[in-house]
């Protein structure tokens, strides 16, 4: 059993919106171990991106955050000095791969400028609080950057650094993003739907690249996706979310073959398969301003009971590494879905 790297306990995040206060995350819990790749799966609006950003500490100023603990490598990020978090954690111990690599680059500066900017503040050689960028370190960092660009299978790295973002292809841009995420030698890489904006043909390549490099550098990966196929590709474990609540966490095999939470089962069954007719989940995603009480899935759940309406269940471990938050977990085998 690897060491626990990240532990989120009862994290709640809400925003003030025009229609009222939206409770985007409701007592979310999650654990991540060192070196593992976890997928955060859910429909649009389920809060997976907000959760990813909460861990990064990159929420908008009008977000209200409450939680028991958000501990990373033994430190509680909720109580740590924000300046320390910005300097040592963000971009260094925890890095980020964005969904759209095109808009994540500043169009007015070259790729090399932006990589250099990152390394100036986040290179492993940097001393904490250092402001200037000594020439020796600059040279060493450049070598580091070129090596990493080669590791992500980009051709002619020196020339690439002189280009502007709009001169690269989508796949190239995302590879540079992955390189930038790994250069600071992080313990955790958070990827927000890293392949959604890419062509299908290169999605698998990028994902495998991410896994290989993460394993090589001993980094954990937490990546969000709405596509179970993507999760299947590289994840060790998967967590599913619905309407701001975490429902089930399991190793990928168990998640796909033996899910215990009704929502997960329905989600898997709704995947298109050659044998069965297309099947959705009846009902609509609830509003986050006035969500259902207790377990937010209960209005659409075939197993809903009064307990479900009353309160969102606590985390319970059903078997090794398989955690659920459900009043009625059931062990059923799922028809082989075309994952």
């Amino acid at each position, binding site marked *: 059993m690897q060491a626990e790297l990240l532990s989120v306990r009862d994290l709640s995040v809400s*925003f003030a*919106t025009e229609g009222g206060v*939206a409770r*985007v995350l409701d007592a979310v819990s999650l654990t991540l171990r060192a070196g593992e790749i976890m997928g955060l799966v859910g429909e649009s609006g389920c809060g997976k991106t*907000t959760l990813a950003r909460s861990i990064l500490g990159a*929420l*908008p100023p*009008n*977000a209200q955050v409450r939680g028991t603990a958000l501990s990373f490598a033994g430190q509680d990020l909720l109580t740590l000095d924000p300046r320390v978090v910005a300097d040592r954690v963000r971009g260094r111990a925890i890095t980020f791969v964005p969904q759209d690599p095109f808009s994540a680059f500043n169009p007015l500066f070259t790729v090399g400028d932006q990589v250099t900017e990152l390394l100036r503040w986040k290179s492993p050689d940097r001393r904490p609080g250092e402001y200037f960028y000594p020439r020796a370190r600059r040279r060493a960092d450049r070598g580091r950057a070129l090596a990493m660009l080669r590791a992500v299978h980009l051709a002619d790295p020196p020339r690439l650094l002189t280009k502007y973002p709009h001169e690269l292809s989508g796949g190239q841009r995302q590879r540079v993003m992955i390189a930038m995420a790994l250069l600071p030698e992080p313990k955790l890489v958070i990827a927000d739907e890293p392949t959604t904006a890419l062509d299908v043909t290169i999605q698998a390549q990028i994902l495998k690249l991410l896994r290989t490099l993460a394993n090589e550098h001993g980094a954990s990966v937490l990546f969000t996706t709405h596509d179970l196929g993507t999760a299947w590709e590289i994840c060790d474990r998967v967590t599913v979310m619905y309407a701001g609540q975490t429902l089930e966490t399991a190793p990928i095999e168990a998640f796909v073959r033996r899910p215990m939470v009704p929502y997960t089962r329905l989600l898997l069954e709704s995947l298109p398969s050659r044998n069965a007719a297309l099947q959705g989940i009846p009902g609509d995603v609830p509003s986050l301003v006035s969500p259902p009480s207790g377990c937010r899935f209960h209005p659409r759940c075939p197993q809903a009971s009064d307990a479900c309406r009353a309160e969102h269940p606590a985390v319970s471990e059903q078997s090794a590494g398989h955690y659920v938050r459900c009043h009625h977990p059931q062990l059923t085998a799922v028809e082989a879905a075309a994952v």
Partner: protein
Amino acid sequence: MSALRRLMRDRSAMLGLAIIVALVAVAVFATPLATFPQDVTTYHPPNRLLPPGPKFWFGTDRMGGDIYSRLLFGARITILIAVVATSVAVLIGVPVGLVAGYYTNRVSDLLMRVSDVFLAVPQIVLAIAIAQTLGPAIQNVILALSVTYWPFWARLVYAETRSLRNEVFIEAAVALGASPLRVMALHVLPSIASSVIVRTTIGMGGTILVAAALGFLGLGPPPPTPEWGRMIAESRAFLPQAWWYAAAPGIAILLVVMGFNLLGDGLRDVLDPRLRRGGDAG
């Protein structure tokens, strides 16, 4: 309509609207509101250059006329010039822009080249040239302003129509057999309507400023017409003693233009989300 309600919640936009309504009211009811309505045309030399007081609220001018009353009647001139000039410019410029933007032929190019020539010179410079040629009269001011303003609209609508041409809903309309006129009138026009409304409002303010400048330079309606710009020009010879003579019309211009600008800004925030500044959502 939630857009209208959002506008009503915008306090500065409502202030602007209030100012404009007040302006119109003042212009319409100038006769009863004025203390000395006859001062628009008659002279009282013994009363010249008196400071503000209980009888002459804003003081008197070099002819002894009550500035307050003349100011009220000047509002009529201001509104007349602004509304007519802007309307003519929009009524000419928008269709020209639509046609030029919709088609891509030589006529379209020519129309835009012509607009570019007009826009190559700052509006006031060209307006001065035209007004000077035609002579100081209110209709000449309106003409000069309209002629120098329509190309701005043509360019604006041209750019928006051009970018809309590639939108799917336009392609759909064309595919369904709509005639070009129909497409322009029923599909393109509504899409650009909000942009036109916003800029018309702000444009009124700008037109008033240019008209006042023309009046200041002596190219506006001749005396004794109480045009605000001319009143300020007249006051120069009597400064610094008769400060009220310059202050009153200037403040009037300031308030009116500010009213249009505030309302225009409010309309922009409500109608044209693309131009909205910065996002608030999390």
